[in-house]
Structures are given as structure tokens and as C-alpha cells.
């Protein structure tokens, strides 16, 4: 039982990360019908932005204020990055074949990964690019007390995971509010439904798509910070696999659906943790893809997806 609960806790911790990244995938797919391959790398950049911001405020004590500042800074930075990527790499291709955009997205993903792996060009005020070897994310928050985790029914729950989980849930609720209760959200859903007609109705389609990208990228940055706080080893390639898995989570939940991405992320995180925990953990990375293949074969629309007929 203890083992089960421990896996459950670990699974939730990983699952929230997947869910936050998957939200970006699902929103972008909703408005553009594009798998933003570079999204996992935006998540990586988010963690690094947090790393640098944390390093720059090194002399400050790890306080809640600093943590909020670093997280917000990184989210804003990634929002701008997302805007740049959309503006210069995807927008010129919007009316071309979809595969063209997919290939470009792969290109952007590689560009981020490999330019971050270069040797540092400059060392002051910080070393950038970080280079291929892993770096250690600074602790943003000091929880006081003796133990960094709480024990409950013999289950170890790291406090940072608990906080991360709370922040993630809050962000998801905020997103849910934005998408379903605000004018921007309504416009976003309209663009997702039919961008051409939405444009005719006076919705500024380009601006909505840009904002969607920024929102998704900011969430990815938050996921990057939460993940790096709990598992502090970061390197330029760690976004790749997480990004792909988050995509699986988005498909599992039903791509284009906001609650689907959340549920998909949590389910995938739990599945991975349980399967890897009870069997051979060296197959961990293959689990997500197996889930993906099963979902696409059994129920391609995912848990919350709608069935749409193909128009000729």
C-alpha cells in the first residue's frame, strides 16, 4: 500500500508537469492545427531562464518573493520567445501545406536545443549558452524546518512537489477561466472553430494566435521552473523527451481540449510511474509512446475529443 501511494505521489508530480506542457500543445493545435514541435524546448528554455534569473539574484535569500519573481520573469521571457517563434517561423507558412510547418517546427526545436549546447560565448553577467553538460537549478524557496519533505502514512511527499502541484492547479484553473470566461478566450475558441469566419466576424486572428502562443509558452516556462525545482538537473536536451510525452498527454486527453490536456497529463504521469515502478524502469521512455499508439488505434480523438467528419 505504501509503495502504491508513493508511486501515486510521484506520478502526480510528473503528471502535473506533463499537463502544463500539454496545455500549450493543445491550445496551439486548437488554433493552428500545428504540432508545435518546439514546445518542449520552450519548456527547457523556461527552466534555463529561471536558472539564470535565480543566479543573477544569487545574493538574495531564497524567499517566496524571489521565487515568484523568477517564475514570472521566466514566464514573460518564454512568452516573448513563443511570440518570436510564431511570428517568424510559423506565420509565413500558415497557408502552406501543414507538413511544411511541421518540418519548420522540428527545425526550431533543433535550433533551440543545439544553440543551447554550444560553448559559452560570454561569461558575464552569466554564462550563455550553457553548453551540453547539466547544470543545477538553484533552490528558489527555503521551506525552513528540518525536512524538505513531509511524511504521511509512510509516504514521502517533498514539500516542493506539493507547492508545484498547487501552483500548477492554480495555473490550470486560471487558464480554464481565461479560455471560457473572457473575451480573449471566446475569440480563441472562435479562431479554433473556424479561423476564416472568425476573421470575417472582426476577430483579429493574428493577434489571437500570437497571444495563444505566448500563453502556452508561459505555461511551459512555469512547468520548466516547477520541474527544475523538484528535479534540479537541467540540460539543453531535457525538454525533448518531456515535450514528446506531453504531446502524448495532449493526444490522450483529446487534442484541442483544455481539460483533456490536464487529465491526459496526470493519467500519463501516473501510468508511467506505475508501469515503471512495478516492472522494469528501463522501459520508461517507451511507455508513453506505447500509450500514444494504443490511444490512436483505439480512440484517436482521445478522452475528451470530439469526433469530426472529414470534409472533402
Amino acid at each position, binding site marked *: 500500500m505504501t509503495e502504491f501511494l508513493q508511486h501515486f505521489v510521484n506520478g502526480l508530480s510528473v503528471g502535473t508537469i506533463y499537463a502544463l506542457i500539454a496545455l500549450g500543445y493543445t491550445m496551439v493545435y486548437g488554433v493552428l492545427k500545428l504540432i508545435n514541435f518546439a514546445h518542449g524546448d520552450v519548456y527547457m528554455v523556461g527552466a534555463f531562464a529561471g536558472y539564470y534569473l535565480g543566479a543573477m539574484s544569487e545574493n538574495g535569500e531564497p524567499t517566496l518573493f524571489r521565487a515568484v519573481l523568477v517564475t514570472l520573469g521566466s514566464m514573460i521571457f518564454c512568452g516573448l520567445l513563443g511570440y518570436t517563434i510564431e511570428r517568424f517561423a510559423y506565420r509565413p507558412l500558415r497557408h502552406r501545406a501543414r507538413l511544411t510547418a511541421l518540418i519548420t517546427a522540428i*527545425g526550431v526545436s533543433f535550433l533551440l536545443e*543545439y544553440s543551447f549546447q554550444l560553448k559559452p560565448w560570454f561569461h558575464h553577467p552569466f554564462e550563455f549558452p550553457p553548453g551540453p553538460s547539466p547544470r543545477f537549478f538553484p533552490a528558489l524557496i527555503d521551506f525552513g524546518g528540518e525536512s524538505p519533505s513531509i511524511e504521511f502514512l509512510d509516504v514521502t511527499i517533498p514539500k516542493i512537489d506539493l507547492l508545484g502541484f498547487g501552483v500548477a492547479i492554480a495555473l490550470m484553473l486560471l487558464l480554464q477561466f481565461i479560455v471560457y470566461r473572457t473575451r480573449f478566450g471566446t475569440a480563441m475558441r472562435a479562431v479554433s472553430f473556424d479561423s476564416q469566419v472568425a476573421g470575417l466576424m472582426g476577430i483579429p486572428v493574428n493577434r489571437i494566435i500570437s497571444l495563444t502562443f505566448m500563453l502556452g509558452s508561459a505555461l511551459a516556462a512555469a512547468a520548466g521552473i516547477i520541474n527544475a525545482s523538484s528535479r534540479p538537473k537541467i540540460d539543453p536536451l531535457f525538454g525533448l523527451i518531456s515535450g514528446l510525452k506531453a504531446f502524448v498527454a495532449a493526444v490522450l486527453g483529446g487534442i484541442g481540449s483544455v481539460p483533456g490536456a490536464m487529465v491526459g497529463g496526470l493519467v500519463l504521469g501516473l501510468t508511467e510511474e506505475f508501469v515503471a515502478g512495478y516492472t522494469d524502469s528501463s522501459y520508461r521512455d517507451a511507455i508513453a509512446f506505447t500509450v*500514444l499508439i494504443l490511444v*490512436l488505434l483505439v480512440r484517436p480523438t482521445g478522452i475528451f475529443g470530439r469526433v469530426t467528419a472529414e470534409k472533402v
Partner: protein
Amino acid sequence: MARALAVLRSFLPFIVGIPILYVIQVFLGSYSPALALIAVTLFVNVVLAVSLNVVNGFTGQFSLGHAGFMAVGAYTAAKITLAFSGLTIPVLGHALTQQAVFAVALSASMFTAAIAGFLVGMPSLRLRGDYLAIVTLGFGEIIRSVIENMKFLGQATGLSGLPARTNLVWVGISAVATVVMARRLAVSTQGRALFAIREDEVAAEAMGVDTTGYKVRAFVISAAYAGLAGALISHAIQLCTPRMFTFIRSIEVVVMVVLGGLGSITGSVVAACTITIALEALREFQAYRMVVYALLLIILMLTRPQGLFGTRELWDLPIFRKLMRKPAVAGGEGASPTEVRDDSTSTGGAA
């Protein structure tokens, strides 16, 4: 008599080519082994690019799992050559026996890779576009993950000490065979069906093309040649590890195909040669290699998404038409069967 001559003519490239390649191999191998290895890599990349073009270019199905099939082929061949490395058939002598073993290993690698292609293709080819891309990527990674966990395949360290069997003759034959296969496929009924699927899958199906069947066949053919390429490269560098077959390898091949033009065989060949040589020239800037790669891919997609040649072949280009003094007949007999008027890109976005 005429028939016999025609058969002979189609074997002419082999009859002339093999001795030439052999001579080059002997000279280059003793003069500069590094250069010989680059030449081998170049031919292997041609095999990879042309075979991936059958799926990505001819059929319009975007596969990102080529490296997985390479891995299957490489490990199959490696197991066979390692198992029979001491074998000598008295009549043939050791050297010739080993060449025969290698030939068997190459055939077996194509066979197992084809089976893998079938197993992967059957379920995933029901999907389209970007889903297919991700699923093939996933399968590629699953294949790698499985290999990494197999004791008898050496797990993460892989198999080392493979006999150095690959030479220019083997890769030359393989490259020519791949190109000829692709060309024959393109001008056949099968090829027409594949192009129909690429242009409009729904319309092709309505016209009675068994879309899933043809897609799976294209996938199997492509996988077989990927397996061949994997076997060749692993016996050139005498090593076979899972790290050689990550999905970055698949992307490299995709870049070649896209650069040359989806659907253009000569385009793939030219792109594979260009990229291989360019990467060797840039070896000093090792770290920047992949950055340049990524930038190239983005800029190419933004400026010329159809690739260098589009769906056309080298001999369709105006310069070559002039050289051959053939009048350019638009859409007529002069045009290559792979050439399709370029309206697919404009309608594709709306679909």
C-alpha cells in the same frame, strides 16, 4: 537477341561500375581510410534519402522513424556476421566465404527491417499527417528502447568488433539498386497509385486505389532499404550501438529528402551528397553543425518549401533539357511521371 541485349544493357552499370568501384576502394582504402569512410557514408546516405523519399516524397506520408528500421537492419546483420565470422567454406576460401556471409547478412537485414516496417506500418498508416509523424517517431524510439534492454544485443553498449566488410563496392551496388528501385517504382502502376495518394488521399480512395495497402507496401520497401543502410554503416564503422539510431538520425535523413525535394529521386541523391560533403567540410565546427542544420531547415521551408528540385528530376530542369536538345513538353511525355503541377501546396493548407 534484342531482348538479351536489353537485359545486358540494364546490367551495364554493374558490369562497368563494380570493377571501377573496386579499384577506387583499393586505392582509396590504402591512401586514406578516412576518405574511404566518407565515401561509404555518402553512398549510405544516398540509400537512406532515396528510400525515405519513397514514403515521404512519393506517398506523401510523413515518417520520422527511419532510424528505427536502420537499427533493426544493423543489428540483424551484425548478429549474422559475428556468428559466422570464423566460417570458411573450403571451395571458396575464407575471404570469399565472408563476403558471401555479408551478402546473406545484408539480405537478412533488409528482410527483418521489412518485417518491422510491416508491423509498424499496419497500425500507424491508418493515421495521417502529423499524427503519423509522431507515431513513427514513437515506434522508432520504442525499437531503440527495446534494443537497449536486450541482453543479447549488448544493451546500451551495443555490439562492437564487427568485421569491416563494407566497402565501396557494396555501398555502390546498394545505392544504385536503391535508385533503380525508386525509379522503377515511380514509373510503375504502383508508383502512380502512390502519387495519387500523395496528391489527394480521399480522391485516390474514391478512384478505387487501395490506399492503406499501397501505403503499407511503400512503407515496407522503404524500411527494407533503411535496414540495408543500417547494416552497411555498422559494418563500415565496425560498431552498432543504440545511440547511432536516435530520432536525430531520422531527422537528418528527412532534411536530405526535404532539401532535395519531396518526390525527386535525383534531388535526394544530390541533397544526400551535398549534405554529407558539407558536414565533412564543417567538421572543424562540430558544435555548430547541428545549429546550421536547423537553420538550413527553417530557411529552406520559409523560402523554398518544395525543396531544390520540387517533384522534378534532374533531367527535367531547363538546363538539362537544353543539353539533351529535347523540346520541353509541359505535362506531355517529356515530363517525369513524378512531376505534378504544384497546386498541392496551396490547397493543402486549407484542408
